[in-house]
Each structure stands twice: as structure tokens, then as C-alpha cells.
């Protein structure tokens, strides 16, 4: 037994109490309780880990550590590409920091009624935004949601190929590939050089008997809108291919939901709806479908439904069709489920409840206006073309620096020195775009912020 230790996180370390408990158990010391571990497996050294800090020291230590970071709140940041800086209402933070929600986990319908209700409400609120009847308890992120949507389509159609546009977010593509291998082949579809949109001819050419699904994104990773949604889903339908659309839900106050142009499955990212970026720790994905048993059967996720109870007027909530899940059926369930990202979904629900229809519409419009303004300002700078693609954009756009004679890396380094985080460097992800960068402009970017960007770019280029 190690030496006696008193620590605020360790209640039962009182000597007498310990002795009493050992006696109750019928052993002499704690080591006896470990007798099933063979000696050769016992670790006998002291762990080479720094000695304990008290709370004051801990706060100072971690405070100093985090102090080495420079948050986007301290600079002007134009980074996006799947994780975005948005305004977060204080009520979202308040709810997300309630000790009850922070520390709850997997309780039942009764003792965790509140948790069930807020997740049901999240499903319901997002469903209104998406115009669908079924939304899941969330997945890990958009990437995994997309992967699962493809796997669902594959099971539904018993086919083994999925088509995705070449403009897909590289992070998501990696996740999709990994989640889909080895069963499902992912084929990339060309885009139209002018608009970035899907090349429908190439799409048609790639559809085969093996095609389970076509997946595309709107807005796309590169910021432009895919305007051919209806056409694409028509093509898909006629070939018994399932249409999956990935969407940034914050756009849906002004953009039509993919459900309206034929999407069978919609997926996307919840981070923008009230969740802090947290260096990527705020990601959370969703999947949505129509209320059809075939689709519902294929969800790996939990789906919470509403029910009456034995008391009149009471709402209860619980798991719908639990037997689908790996919790119930292990390897025979649909994929796998476990801890996901419920808190992000709860927060997204709070966000939508606060914003209401008006807030979402206004917000979408503000984003459209501000990003268009940014494009306009950058357009005034010689040698820069602020929209690589000739298309309408939402929130993000590709800035073409090819004419400047400078690399994006150089430009971003300069901007960094001026307290600006420039757009994501696309030169590796999309070599065909040369020295281009993906800039993100949301409601948090004031005119002044954008003007500073323009000024500094002008100064450097």
C-alpha cells in the first residue's frame, strides 16, 4: 500500500475508516485485494509524473499554459472550413455549464427525464430547420455523420459504392474513407471549373449498378453553393441511388433545406449552432431522414421519442427502436454507438430555441452580406481575385492569390504578424487551385475587421 495521502478528490482515506472497511471485507490490507494480479504484471516503480499540485498551483500552471495560446478572440480570424467562429448567446453557455447536464451520462427515462427531453427537443428543433421528421442523437462530427449516412445508404440499397464531389472537405473525406473501408468504395466526381459545382456528366458517367449513394455538400467546403441539387437528386432517384446532402445548418435561415430539393438523408455539423470551437473539440454531427421505417432501421444512433406516462398530462421520452443499435445487438446492430456529443446537441437546441425563425433568417442574411462585402473589398485589390469560382457563396469563399507572386504561407505569416489569422491555405489540399486560400466571414466580422484585412493585404501585396 502506498503512503497515506489526503486529497480533496479522495474521501475514503481516513485510516480508521479504511481499517473498518478492510475488516468488513475480511482482508488485512489493500494489496490483498490485488492478489489476482500476478507479480510479474505488478508495476512496482513510482510513476514518472510530476508531483501533485494544489488547486492554486494548478490554476496558475494551467493558466500559464493556456496563456501561451492566442485565441481567435484576441485577433481577427478568417479561419473556417468546417469549424467556424460564430456568436454564442450567453444562455447557451449557461445551460451547457449547468452541473446537472455537465455530469449526467446514461441514466434512464426517469431519473434523467430532463436529459431525454432536451435531446428530444434538440431533435425536434433541428427537424424544423431541416424540414424532416427524424433527427438523431448526434454523431461525433459531420464527417462521421456523412460516413454513416453513406453506410446507411449502402445497407438500404445493398450496394457498395458512393460518389462524392472532389470539392469535399478533405478532413471529412478522410473520415468517410476510413469509416467506409473496406466495404464501400468512395469515388470522386469532378467539378465544373467555372462554378465549382458538380459536373453532372461526370456524375452520370460514374453512376453504376454498384452505386448506393451520391453525397454532396451545400454550402460546399469551398464556400460556393451547389445550385443543381434538384437535378442531382433526380438523376440519383432515377438510378435508385440515395441522395445525401451535407449542410451547414446555420445557412438554413436563408437557404432552402436539402429536403426540399430531394435529399433522402441530410447530415451536417452542429458546432456553428452555439458551440465554441475549442480547437476542434466542439464538433458534433447530425443525421436526418424522413419518418420511414426503412431509414429509421438503419440509424446506428439513439433516437429519442415521446410517450405518455401513467400520469395524465405527463410527457415521457425514451429510446425508439433500440434493437437496431449495437447496444442491443453488438456486432449485429447497425454499426456502433456509445458516448457521442450530446452536450453539443443540447446546446444547438438552446441556440435554435433562442434564435427562432427570425433570428435564423437575420443571421443568414448578415452572413451573406458580410461575406459579400469582404469579397467586394478584396476585389478592389489588384492581383487578388476573391472568388475563385464564379458562383454565389455562403460564409466562405476561395481567394485566388496566384497572381500576387506570393504564397499563401507567406501572406498568412504577414497577416499573423498583424494580428490576423488569414484563410486556410488550400495549396496542399487542392493543388489545382494553386496559391489559394479559403476565407470565412460570419456575423462576428465587423466592417472594420474586414477593412483591416483589405488594408493589410493591400499593404503586403
Amino acid at each position, binding site marked *: 500500500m502506498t503512503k497515506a495521502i489526503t486529497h480533496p478528490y479522495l474521501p475514503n482515506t481516513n485510516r480508521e475508516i479504511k481499517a473498518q472497511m478492510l475488516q468488513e471485507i475480511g482482508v488485512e490490507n489493500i494489496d490483498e485485494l490485488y492478489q*489476482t494480479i500476478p507479480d510479474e504484471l505488478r508495476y512496482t516503480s513510482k510513476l514518472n509524473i510530476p508531483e501533485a499540485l494544489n488547486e492554486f498551483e*494548478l490554476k496558475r*500552471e494551467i493558466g500559464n499554459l493556456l496563456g501561451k495560446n492566442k485565441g481567435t478572440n484576441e485577433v481577427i480570424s478568417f479561419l473556417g472550413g468546417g469549424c467556424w467562429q460564430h456568436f454564442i448567446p450567453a444562455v447557451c453557455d449557461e445551460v451547457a455549464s449547468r452541473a446537472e447536464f455537465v455530469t449526467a451520462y446514461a441514466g434512464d427515462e426517469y431519473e434523467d427525464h430532463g436529459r431525454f427531453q432536451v435531446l428530444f427537443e434538440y*431533435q425536434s428543433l433541428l427537424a424544423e430547420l431541416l424540414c424532416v421528421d427524424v433527427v438523431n442523437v448526434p454523431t461525433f462530427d459531420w464527417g462521421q455523420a456523412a460516413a454513416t449516412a453513406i453506410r446507411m445508404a449502402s445497407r438500404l440499397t445493398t450496394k457498395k459504392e458512393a460518389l462524392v464531389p472532389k470539392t469535399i472537405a478533405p478532413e471529412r473525406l478522410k473520415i468517410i474513407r476510413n469509416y467506409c473501408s473496406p466495404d464501400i468504395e468512395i469515388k470522386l466526381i469532378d467539378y465544373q471549373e467555372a462554378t465549382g459545382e458538380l459536373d453532372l456528366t461526370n456524375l452520370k458517367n460514374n453512376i453504376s449498378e454498384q452505386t448506393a449513394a451520391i453525397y454532396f455538400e451545400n454550402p460546399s467546403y469551398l464556400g460556393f453553393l451547389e445550385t443543381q441539387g434538384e437535378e442531382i437528386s433526380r438523376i440519383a432517384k432515377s438510378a435508385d441511388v440515395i441522395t445525401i446532402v451535407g449542410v451547414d445548418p446555420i445557412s438554413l435561415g436563408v437557404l432552402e*433545406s436539402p429536403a426540399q430539393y430531394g435529399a433522402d438523408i441530410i447530415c451536417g455539423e452542429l458546432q456553428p449552432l452555439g458551440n465554441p470551437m475549442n480547437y476542434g473539440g466542439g464538433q458534433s454531427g447530425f443525421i436526418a431522414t424522413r419518418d420511414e421505417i426503412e431509414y429509421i432501421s438503419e440509424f446506428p444512433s439513439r433516437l429519442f421519442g415521446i410517450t405518455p406516462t401513467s400520469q395524465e398530462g405527463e410527457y415521457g421520452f425514451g429510446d425508439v427502436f433500440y434493437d437496431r443499435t449495437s447496444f442491443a445487438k453488438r456486432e449485429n446492430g447497425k454499426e456502433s454507438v456509445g458516448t457521442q456529443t450530446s452536450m453539443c446537441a443540447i446546446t444547438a437546441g438552446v441556440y435554435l*430555441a433562442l434564435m*427562432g425563425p427570425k433570428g435564423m433568417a437575420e443571421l443568414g442574411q448578415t452572413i451573406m*452580406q458580410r461575406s459579400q462585402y469582404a469579397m467586394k473589398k478584396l476585389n478592389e485589390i489588384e492581383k487578388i481575385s476573391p472568388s475563385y469560382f464564379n458562383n454565389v457563396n455562403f460564409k466562405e469563399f476561395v481567394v485566388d492569390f496566384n497572381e500576387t507572386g506570393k504564397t499563401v504561407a507567406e501572406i498568412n505569416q504577414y497577416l499573423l504578424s498583424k494580428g490576423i489569422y488569414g484563410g486556410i491555405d488550400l495549396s496542399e489540399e487542392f493543388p489545382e487551385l494553386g496559391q489559394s486560400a479559403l476565407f470565412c466571414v460570419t456575423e462576428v466580422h465587423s466592417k472594420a475587421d474586414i477593412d483591416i484585412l483589405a488594408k493589410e493585404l493591400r499593404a503586403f501585396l
Partner: protein
Amino acid sequence: MQGIKSQEKVRDFHQAKWNEPVIFKLHQKGERGVVPPKTEDEITSAVGDGLSKLPDHLKRTQAPELPEISQNRVLRHYLRLSQETLGAAFNVEIGQGTCTMKYSPVVNEKLVSSEKLRSLHPKQDEETVQGTLKATYELDLYLREISGMDYFSFQAGSGTQALFAMASMVRAYHEANGEGEQRDEIITTIFSHPSQAATAAVKGYKIITLYPDENGFPDLEKLKDAVSERTAGFVVANPEDTGIYNSKIKEFTKVVHDAGGICYYDQANANGLLGITRAKEAGFDMCFFNLHKTFSTPHACGGPGSGAVGVVERLKPYLPKPIIEKQGERYILNTDLEHSIGKVRSYYGVAQNIIRAYAWIRALGPDGLKAVAETAVLNNNYLYSKIKEIKGVDVPYAEGGRLEQVRYSWEPLYQDTGITTEDISRRMADFAHQYWTSHHPYVVPQPFTLEPTESYSKEDLDEYIESLAHISNEAYTDPEIIRTAPHCSSIHKITTDKYFEDPEHWAITWRSYLKKYVNTKEKQT
């Protein structure tokens, strides 16, 4: 008064009950919860309304039917619902066995609420995130020390995703060695978390499930029978849900290694083992820790969690990209991993959980970590010694030797009274307790699984024990009160599963509920 005292040994409890309607019912046209940032007039005059550029068919024509509710009414609704949620901070949270519901220190919550973390974008220049990278790297070092592994990846957002990452690496490894096709089986055990089998199946593996021998261990002989040139990997927890440590684990890993398979260790819950025994010495090639279990990051209603995957040197090239390494005095994102499986989750992991786990380890130090393990084991054995004495309880498999948790059985009680473990679950809610049965299938009949961790006092444990004893007594004397439970929860018993199992009846969203139940008549007319 003679001092205020209660004769009752169970808590006179009632959960907050607000009977709060579904949020759509709070809708009041014209109310607003928040007003988002608006555009400056100068921008509007420069670019117009911003929407005219949109092709008509992409413009949303019908506003989403979100409710309109003023800010304090939204807040009130969620605050009330929070009180209707029995978080770990509120109860003697030992009833969700295998979940390691320990104390999540409040100071860590305050630390991660810093904008220095919250506002970080994953694509920021490495120079601007050295603090976070350093913490991640050092946490990696600590976990290496605890496990004996050589490198950790924090990308996975949970244990399930960690298991998926490991199954992916198993496949990548055999593929790199030209045995990808041939090795198509993964061996697991029935007492393991369902995600072990499920994630391996997602990676296309055939699952071989070992059942326990009479002592509750996976059967070594059966393992020997199971392995072959088709064996890709073996995944197991130790202890499994029974809480019994499998002393022969090294033989198990040897058998698999001899057959050319990879051994990966489910250490989602390693709470009884910190500083006691390590994955490496037991012969594992990989392991993972749930930071939201052993390392105290809160469970957040079910995530985001964090599954830290550790591998031996040989498997480093297969890790998801990037991993964080130290180069001189700088911390960098290393993407140079030859056989990398790519990604399981966007970016680099749940940064806030990395910081929390890091802070937790720093607060405890080496002696504290070992004391955690020992106290958890002490608490569990104390609980075990008391609970097995309760009438109607049975503890299957080996006598004693339990580490951090135990799977118990109410089978005798059920035989005597007809009261099931689900009935007891509902009744436990009346005394402010969480209570979990087991994963499916119920290998142990009428199961329940308790894991007390290090976070509770003897007095706390006694309260939980008293509640179980009380209910056992009720089962023999007044079973109706159990059958009709809960009586003191936020809601009453759900008496039919129609709304969960029948496609005609279920409603997974309010929209669907309205269609099925409320607007039906209007629609028909």
C-alpha cells in the same frame, strides 16, 4: 426537540418535477430569445440585401417553424429541465457500473471555460497554440507512463471511436503486411462493451465471441481453438464487467501473438489499475483510455468524451494523423505517419477534455493516482462484501477478487418475487440513485452493475447499500410499490413500449408528434 433524526435509512427524496411542456408549446409569436449581430448600414449600401444573389430555388421560402420565445422563458425551461436530470454531481453516483462516474473537479470546468481554449480554431498556426499542444504532449507522456505504450493519439471522441480507430489500425497493419484479406477475424468476449464487437464489424471483420468459463473469465482453451491464420486481432477488457482480473492475460496475448494477431486492450475504465499494472507488461500492442472515465472528464449527458489510443512503437505509423510531438522546444502536429489510417474524427481530438484530464493528473500526482486506484478497489470490495449479503442478490462467478466493479444478479429475488432488475431500476430512482443493469445480452440474469470509484465516502456507499436492502425488503413484503415505481421522479412510469417500438406510434420529433396525434383530424377534414 430531541435533535432532528429520521428513523428511515433511505433518503426522503423527491426529484424536481416541473411538468415542463415540450419547448414548442412556449411559442408566443413576436417573442425573441436573442437578436443576432446585424449588418452595418455601410455594408448594406455596399452590397445590398445579400440575398438577391441567391438563385430563387435556393432561397428559403417558408421560415422554419421554430418557436418564438423570450430569453428568460427559454432559460427557465432549460433550467427546469436541468433540475430534472440526476447528474453525477448530485447523487452517490455508483450505479452506472463500467462508466466510472467519478468526481469531475469543478476547477477543471473553470479552466476550460477560458477563451484561450474555447476560441481556438483548429487551423491556427502552430505557434499560436503552443499551450494546448504542450498539454497534449505531456498528457501523452503521462499516459505512456501509465500504460507502457509508446505513443498516444487523442483524436477519438469516445471509447467507441477509440475501438474503431484500433480496429482500423489492425486492418491497416495486416494490409501493410499483405495479410489484409487473409486475416478477417477479430476475437472478443461476451462480457465486453458491445462497441468492441460492433466497431470491428464496421471494419469488415467477422467477430468471434468467447464466452466465460465457470469463473467468469474468457476461456483460454477456447481462445486457443479460435485463433488461426485468419486471426487479425483480439480485443478484451481486463477486468471485464465482472470486475475480476484475469490473471492469465499474458497467456492470452501470447496465444494471439503466436497466431499473428494484434492484441488491443479496452481500458476505457482503468480506474483500479493506475500505477498498479500496465498494458505493456500484459502483452498488449495497443490500448485506450476513456478520459471521460478514469481521467475524470465529465460525461456531458453523453459526450463529447475522449478516447486516448496508445500503441507500441511498431504501430506508430498506423496512427490517425496528426499526432503531437515535441521538436526542440516547440510542439508540432506531425502528419508524417506512413501507414496512417487517416482520420477517425476531424482535427486532433476534444481539446477541452485533454486539458481536463491533464489537470486532473497534475492535481493528483503519482501517489494520488495510485491512491485513486487503491481507494476505488477498496470501495468496490466493501460494497461487494455488503451487497452480497442482501437477500435476493447473487454474485456469479469467482468468489472475491474483484477490482473496481462487480456485476451482481437479482436472480434469486426474481425467482422469489417476480421483481425484475428493471423494476428495481425504477424504484432506485425514488431514492435519488442511478442504477444500471448490464449490456445485452444478459449473460448474468437480472443483472446490475456497480462501480463506486474513489469519489465516495463509506457513508455514501452505505446509503446506496441501504437503498438496495430496503427495496429487497419491499420486494418480499410490498412488491406493488416497486412495480408501480417511480413515485418520486420527475415523471411516472411509462406503461407501454408502443411509442418506442411501433412505427405507427413513435414520434421522434415534435413535428412528427404533431402529424401523428394533433393535426391528424385537421388534415383529414
